[in-house]
């Protein structure tokens, strides 16, 4: 009865049509080409976030450098030795350079035949223009350079830098992303804001498209004067979720995947066709101890915290072994590193003895951190546990990252935690930033460490040009700051990245995290 009713008949027909339509759509989807591996000659890199801005005079974010670094050249670049990136430098646009004995004048000669991606020549004028533009912008990248530095064109292929006071890291700063040489004609024609969304350099690649939040495509610069890259295209895919990046790498839709979940790296590396490469980095994690006020102003209390830290437990338990304990402030891999420097280790008896002899006995300390780095909380908990066993109560304060920075900037904390990575390959980035009393606060000396002897040593080291002499001074200063436990020197973490097995030639440079040498990488 019911089945013969017109409404029911109509519904039945509708359902049939729907079923047919869905069958056709499903068949179409299923029979369409399998979700294939990335095409030969195309390298697909999966990243967690879209670049913010591509302007080398503005960006200080390594995430942006994935695109900007291969799109521009600089006067100097980091050497690759035996397939490995180093912190030593060589000429990139520059064929050679000279410096005056006092280190105040530097002259660079440009290589012949260097061209921007529109075919125009890279001249000394372009170098002057780029540096003056960056300094005038006065944003983050300009921090690495003396603000009163003068740039002059000596000849069409020679550029001269004049400094007002000696600044020994100068040569190394020229390999920084902020020292990229931009095409003045493009900036003048398109306006300075153009470089936020496009590239105009002389590097091996150039940006050809940017689908915001989705992908960026780079292709070789046809006018690049160096060796032609073997890759025909590089796609940077933005995939916010780490598990999705993992799946796409395993399925072959990505050739390279960054920021994979640490606890999953071991299982990812067991998947066929996937490797997880680990490289020692210069990114360090350390505890700031407020030297200026409260219980931490007592050196014995700071030493006690250094002895009450479970370094190996943190490295094994929290970082799954993917880190190495620091030996003072200068990390291994940076010149100036002292392999014989004193290293603290967990020694609760000694810590107890030091606490008993300090003004901090029975104190309650606050430990401020944020969720920016997932490792910070377990480290804070570990510190709380070991100090708690010694009768020192630690109150954990998990703050919004901006609030935490503000607290550190004001010196409103007892213990805090942070990461640090150098902007140029010079121990200045650690010793002068961390310990010079003139850099107190968020920009560098976050422990508010103040020792006139150390000030003198690090300032002298920054004014000399002789690397051996500088190393000696820095190591001398380092002995003092280790003994005085200015910070708790925790660990330098490995940089880990997932790669398909057919991707070869990745030369990680500890100065350039998130930058891939796509000009020499190959896909087999």
């Amino acid at each position, binding site marked *: 009865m019911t089945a013969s009713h017109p409404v029911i008949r109509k519904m039945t027909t509708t359902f049939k049509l729907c079923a047919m339509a869905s069958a056709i759509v499903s068949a179409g989807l299923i029979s369409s080409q399998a979700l294939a591996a990335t095409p030969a000659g195309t390298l697909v890199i999966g990243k967690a976030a879209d670049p913010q*801005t591509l302007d080398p005079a503005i960006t200080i974010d390594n995430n942006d450098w994935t695109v900007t670094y291969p799109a521009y050249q600089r006067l100097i670049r980091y050497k690759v030795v035996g397939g490995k990136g180093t912190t030593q430098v060589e000429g990139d646009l520059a064929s050679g350079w000279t410096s005056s004995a006092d280190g105040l004048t530097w002259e660079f000669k440009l290589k012949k035949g260097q061209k921007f991606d529109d075919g125009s020549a890279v001249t000394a004028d372009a170098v002057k223009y780029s540096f003056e533009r960056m300094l005038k912008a006065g944003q983050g990248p300009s*921090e690495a350079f003396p603000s009163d530095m003068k740039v002059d064109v000596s000849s069409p292929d020679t550029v001269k830098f004049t400094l007002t006071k000696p600044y020994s890291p100068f040569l190394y700063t020229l390999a920084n992303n902020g020292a990229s040489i931009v095409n003045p004609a493009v900036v003048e024609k398109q306006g300075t804001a153009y470089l936020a969304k496009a590239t105009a350099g002389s590097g091996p690649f150039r940006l050809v498209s940017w689908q915001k*939040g*989705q992908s960026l495509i780079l292709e070789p610069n046809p006018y690049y004067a160096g060796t032609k890259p073997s890759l025909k295209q590089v796609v940077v*895919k933005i995939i916010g979720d780490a598990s999705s990046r993992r799946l796409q790498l395993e399925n072959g839709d990505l050739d390279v995947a960054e920021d994979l979940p640490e606890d999953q790296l071991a299982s990812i590396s067991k998947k066929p066709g996937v490797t997880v490469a680990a490289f020692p980095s210069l990114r360090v994690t350390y505890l700031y101890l407020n030297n200026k006020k409260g219980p931490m102003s007592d050196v014995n209390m700071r030493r006690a915290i250094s002895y009450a830290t479970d370094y190996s437990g943190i490295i094994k338990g929290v970082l799954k072994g993917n880190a190495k304990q620091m030996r003072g402030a200068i990390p291994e891999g940076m010149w100036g590193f002292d392999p014989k420097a004193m290293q603290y280790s967990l020694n609760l008896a000694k810590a107890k003895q030091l606490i008993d002899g300090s003004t901090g006995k029975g104190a309650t300390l606050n430990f401020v951190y944020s969720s920016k780095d997932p490792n910070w909380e377990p480290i804070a908990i570990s510190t709380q546990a070991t100090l708690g066993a010694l009768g020192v109560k630690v109150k954990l304060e998990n703050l919004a990252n901006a609030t935490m920075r503000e607290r550190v900037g004001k010196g409103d904390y007892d213990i805090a935690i942070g990461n640090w990575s150098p902007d140029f390959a010079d121990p200045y980035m650690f010793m002068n930033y961390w310990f010079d009393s003139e850099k107190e606060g968020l920009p560098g000396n976050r422990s508010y460490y103040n020792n006139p002897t150390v000030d003198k040593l690090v300032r002298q080291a920054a004014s000399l040009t002789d690397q051996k002499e500088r190393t000696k001074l820095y190591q001398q200063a380092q002995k003092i700051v280790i003994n005085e436990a200015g910070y708790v020197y925790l660990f330098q973490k490995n940089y880990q990245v997932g790669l398909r097995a057919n991707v070869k030639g990745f030369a990680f440079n500890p100065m350039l995290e998130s930058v891939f040498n796509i000009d020499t990488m190959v896909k087999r």
Partner: protein
Amino acid sequence: MAFLRMIKKRLLGLLLVVLGVSFITFAISHLIPGDPARLIAGDKASEEIVQNIREQLGLNQPLYIQYGTYLKGLATGDLGTSIRTTRPVLEDLKAFFPATLELSLVALLFASALGIPLGVISAVYKDKPIDQVVRTLAVTGISTPAFWLGLGVIVVFYGKLGLLPGGGRIDEGLTPPAAMTGFYLIDTLLQGDKAAFVSALKHILLPAFTLGFVHLGVVARQIRSAMLEQLQEDYIRTAKANGTSKWGVILHHALPNALIPSVTVIGLALGDLLYGAVLTETVFAWPGMGAYVVNSIQALDFPAVMGFAVVVSFAYVIVNLIVDMLYMLIDPRISEVS
């Protein structure tokens, strides 16, 4: 006339909503501790550089001047410049908003197209096994976290079966359609690019299902309860007494009346979908406003956050206006009362 009066009134309200939203977002953005200039300059930058950036961005001006400048721009359709991306906020939102809207609309279509029939069936077969199944499905939908469901369907349909893509809006090898509407499904059809359309369709299925699943439950439950209420009414008994068939009564008499309150639920759901797409977008690498706004909040990029709030609240008010207009069409009594 009543119709026009209502539209006029609502548009005036829209102006007040936008003003209110911009003021509240501005106030909250400036109450949050942290300095956007410091975030741009980087931790290592000297105070001199940070101060320079403050001046460049006008952050050194008194707050009322900053807000006044913002409102002046807003009146001319200028949402300011993003602190983080250094691009005009409007340009950024133009790139991201259509993706979010397309995903939300397809999710809503999915939720309504399945939720309405399921709600009807559930009400008609109240307390029967099929009703139990639908109710369980509805509760599951409402209580399943989107990121969990998203990962689950990716693992199954992309990871294990390889049937559908794991993320993005279109295959890498294909050129995205020229932006006409900003909706890939429509733009690819308008340009007659079949391959791109199929790819866009494949890419939207899983995120739309994930996003729509929660609202599927809401819609099904709403329709069920409205239908149960309607089926008890006297006019239903009269219709039955007149000899109208069971399904005729259900579809022609009860359902249209049950749809009236459901239109509100569906309209509000679109607002929720626009705001709530963040997690789904993250899991599916969907290039919508979600990731943009989250990154902007973290970077204290208040022009971008304010731009987002203004655009979404604008869309929300417009959707509600459309809902009210639909009310009048569905139920002429409302128009008469107005």
